[in-house]
């Protein structure tokens, strides 16, 4: 079984968020980019664990992006993926990205496609479900546990008010959340090996651009914190009741 892990190239969690070109695009100047944490910590590491357990033959990274995301792809290879594919496109929206990944997975014999539960830049939780729709494969979202045995995949995933254990057959798309695996720090051997692992560059196929971002605006920050004396909690209760009107 070959596993395809979709990774996104996102600004570091602590990056300063600002916009350029009349607020129509993200200002990447001076921003450090990382593998989207859910793609890295959960999807990629669990894929590697399955390979180490002899349950997968190959772990391939797939990324829809331009040349500037190669450092992020190399990091994924350093953590342990066998090889990587970069679809050469700026990935205009979730549907376009999902379409590219779905086409590649189907054409190249991948049976398990893993994504993180969401990206920390667009927070859409959309690409995995769209890949499922485009391939007509089953999709299990927000999975916290996954194991594979004789072509059957057993997963635990979140539902309203709890979780459920499900069994699915391959091919399958899974979005991975906390619980799936623990973060791995690449070691020197992995970093050296990553330098010679192949990154195949594939031109994007023509796809629909169903949505586009017209503009960005920073969220309103909070006004100054109002401090209340620790001996005067009644004042806090009054403020919550009469000013904030939340209790």
């Amino acid at each position, binding site marked *: 079984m070959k596993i395809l892990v979709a990774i996104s190239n996102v600004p570091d*969690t602590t990056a300063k968020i600002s916009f350029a070109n009349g607020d129509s695009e993200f200002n990447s100047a001076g921003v450090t980019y990382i593998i989207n944490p859910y793609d890295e910590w959960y999807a990629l590491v669990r894929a590697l664990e399955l390979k180490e357990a002899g349950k997968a033959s190959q772990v391939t990274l797939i990324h829809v992006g331009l040349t500037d995301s190669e450092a992020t792809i190399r990091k994924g290879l350093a953590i342990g993926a066998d090889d990587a594919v970069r679809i050469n496109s700026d990935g205009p929206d979730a549907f376009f990205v999902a379409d590219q990944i779905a086409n590649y997975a189907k054409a190249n014999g991948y049976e398990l496609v893993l994504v993180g539960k969401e990206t920390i830049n667009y927070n*859409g939780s*959309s690409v995995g*479900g769209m890949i499922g729709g485009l391939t007509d494969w089953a999709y299990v979202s927000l999975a916290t546990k996954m194991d594979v045995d004789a072509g059957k995949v057993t997963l635990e995933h979140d539902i*309203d008010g709890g*979780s459920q254990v499900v069994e699915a057959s391959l091919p399958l798309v899974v979005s991975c959340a906390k*619980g799936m695996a623990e973060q791995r720090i690449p070691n020197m051997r992995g970093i050296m090996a990553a330098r010679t692992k192949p990154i195949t560059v594939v031109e994007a196929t023509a796809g629909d651009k169903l949505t586009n971002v017209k503009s960005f605006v920073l969220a309103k920050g909070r006004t100054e914190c109002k*401090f209340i004396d620790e001996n005067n909690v009644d004042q806090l209760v009054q403020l919550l009741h009469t000013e904030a009107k*939340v209790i």
Partner: protein
Amino acid sequence: MSVLIYTEVNKGKVKKASLECVNYGAKIAQLLGTTATAIVVNADAAQLEEIGKAGANKILSVKNDAIGNDSILITAMVEQAAKAEGSKVIVFAFDVNGKAVAPRLSAKLRAGLVAGAVDYPAVNGAALEVKKNVFSGKAIALYSINSDIKVISLLPNSFPIVLGANAATVADFSADLSAIASKIVVKEVKSTSSGTSVPLPEAELVVSAGRGMKGPENWGMVEDLANAIGATTACSRPVADMHWRPHHEHVGQTGVAIRPNLYIAIGISGAIQHLAGVNGSKTIVVINSDKEAPFFKSADYGIVGDAFTILPKLTEAIKKLKANAN
């Protein structure tokens, strides 16, 4: 054409997020000069009435015990309903099932999706323009949906629910799912909801505590405060990782992202990863013994002091307020 709204019944009630979606879908229908149709599985008369009160003109009532939380079957059902109704806009909640179904349907219909909308859309020619939170709540993006059919999932707790006197026409709808083999077999369902408290993603009031509580044996006073307010309890990541509290209570970037009306954070320093999961809360109260705790910068109200002396006093003060209000 009509606007189609997917709604759910959970634990004997129409989900709060679903009622928000009906309000939202009815508003979009008004904007487009059309009607709002809701679809719901296994709802009783009282639940159908409530969906009507939230503004649906028509309800497609489906009786089916196989659908459950299966995103493949839900997608097929909504797709058939959208065809039957000629729907051009389809609304979901951006909740657990909405996150699985809306993108699948979007792909099937080649319909542009905005996942996690926070405001009503605006019409711009044939496009709809919708705002959603991006960069974990640090910014808002204005999306244009350019496809003929449009899918929007609404971020829960974005709007208060308004129930009116409207009554919907109810029509039985039988989705034909015989050709769609469910590819997912449910083996076991585990419930994490404790007693009567509202599940975290839907909670309007949340009391959350972190390492500052020093140990799981001290959570009694956190629970007392939560009970006095009628709030759901939550915790920070280290607390869940140390097994002081169950994982489903963990709020933050890797845990559950929430946006209640009131978030009280006790003994939580406010790491950026924690803030990413709670900064959508309308009012934030921070109680911390360290006046340099970064969380105060993101708070509306703050108390610097010892949680062990403040919490019991705060609980009493809340009880007093509630007693006077009655």
